[in-house]
């Protein structure tokens, strides 16, 4: 079972490809299984930036069940709403949109809503800081969201959840899931300035041969067309700090330097382009690298769609395993 595999890593993120693909169930399942093995988990979440506070507070955010001794980080707001007893270990100096972050240890098991830091570097620091309490593993409730500056890729390994909520048409479900796993496997870009680059929130930069960074002064990747003459001013390694859309890939693809171009992005979750766009980009000789890479260790499936359609779990598992070459589980079984 993948639980034993997980314990080989220091940190794990669980990410859903779509709502209702069973991410919360998977998270609860992993935490429960670890508890049964007598292992202690530390859990936190990827935060969502300020403008989405209302979304966060008004929509239902799932509660996570935490066993005794689990260490968790959540915002002040969600800490106050906890349905468990816990000992506060630390409070951050910095604030998120939902208040400071509280680190606590569960004394009497129960439920809590997880929220976390809004940036990838802060999340990295938190994972680091949680080591102080000697957990057997740190788990991040991840998110694939355009709105999130955080990244599930800061963890050493990852579990992806997919299922009927994404598509009830088996070939499409498989193709979409496979595409994401391909993005997750994009190779890592090695540079001494990784942390600096991760902290940049937007803009387009060139990375020179010695790792030096030049701001190309292009305010947004949506304006690439207007500024394309600046693009190759400092070589052909281009870092896009925000998200990369299909449009960006199309624009780069038609440049004469495309065969030498390496496009660097924060992590796989920042690529918002269709499979076709990515394929066309690569076909012209362009390369894509990520600053943060994680290892996908398992895929969990939820064969039930929100509308009530139930896919054949065994078939789904079999076909996905064949296509992805990664263990696939239906944790409800």
């Amino acid at each position, binding site marked *: 079972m993948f639980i034993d595999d997980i314990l080989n890593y220091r940190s794990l993120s669980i990410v859903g490809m779509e709502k209702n693909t069973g991410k919360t169930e998977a998270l609860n399942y992993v935490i429960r299984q670890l508890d049964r093995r007598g292992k202690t988990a530390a859990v936190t979440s990827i935060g969502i930036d300020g403008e989405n506070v209302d979304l966060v507070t008004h929509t239902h955010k799932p509660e996570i069940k935490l066993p005794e001794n689990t260490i968790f980080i959540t915002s002040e707001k969600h800490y106050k709403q906890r349905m468990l007893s816990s000992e506060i270990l630390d*409070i951050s100096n910095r604030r998120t949109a939902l208040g400071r972050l509280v680190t606590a240890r569960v*004394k009497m098991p129960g439920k809590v809503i997880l929220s976390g830091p809004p940036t990838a570097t802060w999340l990295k620091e938190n994972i680091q800081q949680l080591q102080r309490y000697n957990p057997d593993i740190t788990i991040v409730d991840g998110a694939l969201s355009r709105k999130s500056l955080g990244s599930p890729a800061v963890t050493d390994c990852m579990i992806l959840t997919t299922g009927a909520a994404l598509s009830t048409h088996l070939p499409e479900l498989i193709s979409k899931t496979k595409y994401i796993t391909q993005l997750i496997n994009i190779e890592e870009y090695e540079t001494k300035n990784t942390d600096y680059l991760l902290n940049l929130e937007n803009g387009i930069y060139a990375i020179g041969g010695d790792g030096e960074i030049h701001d190309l002064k292009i305010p947004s990747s949506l304006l690439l067309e207007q500024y394309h003459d600046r693009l190759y001013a400092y070589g052909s390694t281009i870092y896009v700090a925000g998200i990369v859309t299909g449009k960006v890939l199309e624009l780069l693809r038609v440049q004469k330097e495309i065969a030498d171009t390496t496009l660097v992005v924060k992590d796989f979750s920042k690529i918002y382009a269709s499979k076709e766009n990515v394929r066309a980009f690569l076909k012209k000789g362009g390369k894509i690298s990520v600053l943060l890479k994680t290892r996908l260790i398992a895929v969990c499936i939820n064969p039930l769609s929100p509308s009530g359609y139930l896919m054949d779990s065994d078939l789904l598992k079999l076909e996905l395993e064949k296509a992805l070459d990664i263990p696939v589980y239906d944790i409800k079984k």
Partner: protein
Amino acid sequence: MKLSKSSTFQSAVQQISGLSFIYENLPIHSSLGRKKLMESLFCTDQCEIEETLDLTAQLIGLLKETQTKDRIGELSDYLSQFHDISHTLANLSAQKVLDDIQFFEIKKFAILTENVIEILQKTDISWAEFYEMKEVVALLDPEGRRIPHFYIYAEYSDEIARKRKQYSKEKNPDVKESLFLEISRLEDGVREKLSKQLSAFSTQLFVNFQQISALDLVLAKAKMAIRLDLCKPKIESGRSSLRGLFHPEVSSLLQSKSRRYQPVDLSFELSPLLITGANMSGKTILLKSVALAQAMLQFGLYVPAAHASMMLVDEVMLSIGERESEMSGLSSFAAEILTIDDIVKTVKKNVKVVALVDELARTTNPEEGKLIVKSFIEIMARYNTPAIVTTHYAGIDTCVRRLRVKGLQIDDNVEITAETINDYMDYSLAEITEDEVPEEALRIARILGVDEELTGNQKNSTFAGLKK
């Protein structure tokens, strides 16, 4: 632009050139220390300033000594861990029931304060007004672990302890839930009781909170004084003497270009002072340095000089630069003359002012300009006001102390450029008796490489009458 008793450090940063650089160089750890500084007022109380300066001196001594350096490092570590708990303390003194986050804050604050007190005692820092926090810690740390974690510990109530045991053994989810609610209710009871017990200490906590921010601030002042090579000013009445005065921001800028800043000696008493000097001879920076030193002194900081004895004033008034006129939409002359008028009116109310005026009336015609300078200086003399006025005007007919920036110290044959002009400029001041004004504008302009016709080569007859 002026500083008076109602000016906070925050407002002074906007007004005094180079003060924001000072702020950036103050290694304050806690947000409370920063808040304390920003809210501190321009001080005119000699005892208060001297007390701060003495404490700074004491800490500098400890920072420089190897035996105590590590202790102070430890102190810095603790100070950096303090949070701003003013909101929690307000809740406490308002007799509200605190939540676990607030208990945690108070517990951490109390434990850290105990650590700080311990270090202060070990290093003999004469910092009196800390309240011991042992009782507060004891209330929030029934397990006696002295770790700043917080929980409604079982030690608070036997009933909670019993119910929790019951809860962990219980299998029936319905019973479990009702047990959870019951425990929560009991915990709330403990919170209420604890809040009440703690509120007895709210004044002490509040005082300590103030003291911690003050300590953080003084330690930062001491570290900055070492870093920027500042000196402890001596307070004197009726006389200021600044030896080796410098402007830290400009000095550090020059240093980053491997160039040297030439410090200047300047002293003045309760009478005006007229300074002349060529263009680019640093008159403006000199005035800014004096303003900065005066402001730093009266915010309880060491000053940028090698040696300083200084008078305290009620107000620092400046007329430097044209920034204000751009803001208010007035013409540069109108803005200037209104500032000058403000100085005159303030002085006539017998307020103790140091006035720093750069090139008074420079934007109007020299004949009238001279008259304005003369009458301003005479008013300042009549009211015994140290006013430092720079000017380019010759023929100001008044008996007042005059200084001249020595200026370019080479003959015409040496090749100098805009980059190297600094190396040949002597920025020091010399006493002069006559009304002499350097005529170096053309020479400086040539050095800067402006169009030859502008600076009077043979082709331009405009310059025929000029002696040089």
